[in-house]
């Protein structure tokens, strides 16, 4: 039977998150000490060898991203590291757990990443609603300065790095890296055209590494124990562990760290099985910008590469479970309403499209003479939106829509 393997979450519940001494006793900053003894390029090579994929949702190789940033614009006066702590994907709360319970872990990962790309300045962009995460991260930063782990000449290495916290203010879209940079600069959260990517022109127009909290929280282990040790868990294409946040109709909803590649069935079991013993009906993987699956996917491996092959997504690691009796149309309507609320309005297809999709979903729910045609129209519209919107928000509604239609078309189109 599958058990949790806590690597990133190893200290959760065992240390006082507001005590740096506690964290250090538990091994915090060992990875940083090791990193500072080698060249920045060696750190990047180790991460590339580990094949750590970004844990924010897109799954881009983290080492590669660092390499791009480290080689970008050699004459630029400054490089930045930006931590994406704007966790807002529905059903996702893995970063919150790290920030609230072991903030030094991701702070250490951030300093290592800054060293790797030679960035002397970092920003941690935390969503405004995460008060506890904000407070504990600020405490961690203050204590790290006192111990010489931040600031000038870190641990006598000659490397300088300053880090400060920036607050979000209730915009899901700002979790998208380029939009986050706009917000970080003190502007409205409208997305930027890409390219250029942040590695070239990021914060304040300078090369910037943007990484998710969980991604950074994996780095200390890789540096302290080596890429080979890291790859001992997980699959060939998706090495390491992943924190899944399982919610909905399970008995013990919560956060679970397991090797990449466990099955959906195993995750449900880990979360105490289906609540009230009801039969499984569907899972929404990766949150609102994710995909619905049905029972035919229960035995599939949960990894970036495998789910991609099956037309599904792992995304942020959100797993929302639905039981027999839960109408798929309600969940779909909720996701579409979410996108309508969060669309920034910059791209017309997204602004009008997200509103139109909510109206259609209401018709799908409340009655329409030809639901089959309506559903097809919704998929067509969301496909056009995806092709004509700048940022992932406009590109997202097609994901839950298409997957819901492919697994649950009969239920969605039946005439009541």
């Amino acid at each position: 039977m599958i058990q949790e393997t806590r690597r990133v979450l190893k200290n959760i519940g065992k240390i006082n998150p507001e005590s740096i001494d506690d964290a250090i006793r538990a091994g915090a900053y060992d990875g940083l000490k090791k990193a500072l003894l080698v060249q920045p390029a060696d750190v990047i090579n180790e991460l590339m060898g580990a094949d750590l994929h970004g844990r924010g949702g897109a799954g881009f190789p983290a080492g590669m991203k660092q390499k791009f940033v480290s080689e970008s614009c050699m004459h630029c006066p400054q490089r930045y590291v930006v931590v994406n702590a704007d966790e807002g994907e529905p059903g996702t709360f893995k970063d919150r757990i790290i920030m609230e319970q072991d903030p030094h872990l991701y702070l250490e990962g951030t300093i290592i990443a800054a060293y790797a790309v030679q960035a002397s300045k970092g920003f941690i962009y935390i969503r405004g609603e995460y008060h506890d995460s904000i407070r504990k991260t600020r405490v961690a930063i203050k204590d790290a300065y006192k111990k010489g782990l931040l600031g000038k000449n870190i641990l006598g290495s000659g490397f300088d790095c300053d880090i400060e916290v920036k607050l979000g203010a209730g915009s899901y879209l700002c979790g998208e890296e380029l939009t986050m940079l706009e917000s970080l600069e003190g502007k409205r959260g409208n997305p930027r055209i890409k390219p250029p990517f942040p590695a070239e022109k990021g914060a304040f127009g300078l090369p910037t590494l943007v990484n998710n909290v969980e991604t950074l929280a994996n780095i200390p282990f890789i540096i302290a124990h080596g890429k080979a040790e890291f790859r001992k868990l997980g699959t060939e294409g998706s090495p390491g562990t992943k924190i899944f946040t399982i919610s909905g109709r399970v008995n013990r909803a919560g956060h679970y760290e397991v090797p990449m590649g466990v099955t959906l069935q195993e995750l449900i079991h880990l979360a105490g099985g289906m609540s009230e013993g009801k039969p499984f009906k569907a899972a929404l993987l990766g949150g609102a910008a994710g995909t619905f699956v049905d029972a035919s996917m229960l035995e599939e491996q949960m990894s970036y590469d495998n789910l991609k092959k099956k037309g599904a997504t792992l995304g942020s690691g959100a797993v929302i479970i639905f039981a027999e009796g839960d109408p798929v149309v309600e969940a779909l309507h909720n996701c579409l309403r979410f996108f309508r609320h969060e669309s920034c309005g910059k791209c017309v297809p997204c602004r009008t499209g997200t509103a139109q999709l909510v109206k259609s979903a209401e018709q799908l729910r409340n009655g329409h003479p030809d639901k089959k045609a309506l559903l097809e129209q919704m998929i067509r519209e969301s496909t056009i939106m995806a092709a004509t919107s700048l940022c992932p928000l406009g590109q997202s509604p097609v994901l839950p829509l298409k997957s819901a239609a492919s697994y649950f078309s009969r239920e969605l189109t039946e005439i009541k």
Partner: protein
Amino acid sequence: MTNPLQLMCTQQIIEQFAPEQHNLLNILHALQDNHPQNYLTEQALDDTARYLGLPKSSVYGVATYYTMFSLVPRGRYIVRVCTSVVCELHKAGRVIGSLENMLGITTGETTPDGMFTLELSECLGQCQDAPSVMVNEKVYNNLDDNRLAEIIHQIRGSQKTANR
């Protein structure tokens, strides 16, 4: 739940930050948190614009873009009900209805005594214990009618004591 900055004037708050545009969101948060009615006054926006050397329009544009900022007075306590797909599955709709009944207002309104404003929120990241609400900085989970009544009662009680 008193704010340590409560008695500071706008200028004092703003000047804790360097006069650089990237501090705008942090400044607006600090100003709003400092105001007993949880909102950004026109004066506050003007002062911020002047301090950062920005046109008033860009400060206004930012303040109106983000959901957490308000340009109209609100209650001392902002009650945010999570309406995410997970909370909805766990009857967030009922939580909204119960709160509207208990507070005697509809969503978006403020109670006549200026104590509570009822708002909706996207996912608060508390899905392990849905349904959830956030009251100012505090999160409450696993809610049912009894628990909600208890929370509202408790806040009203603590406020009375504070006013004495």
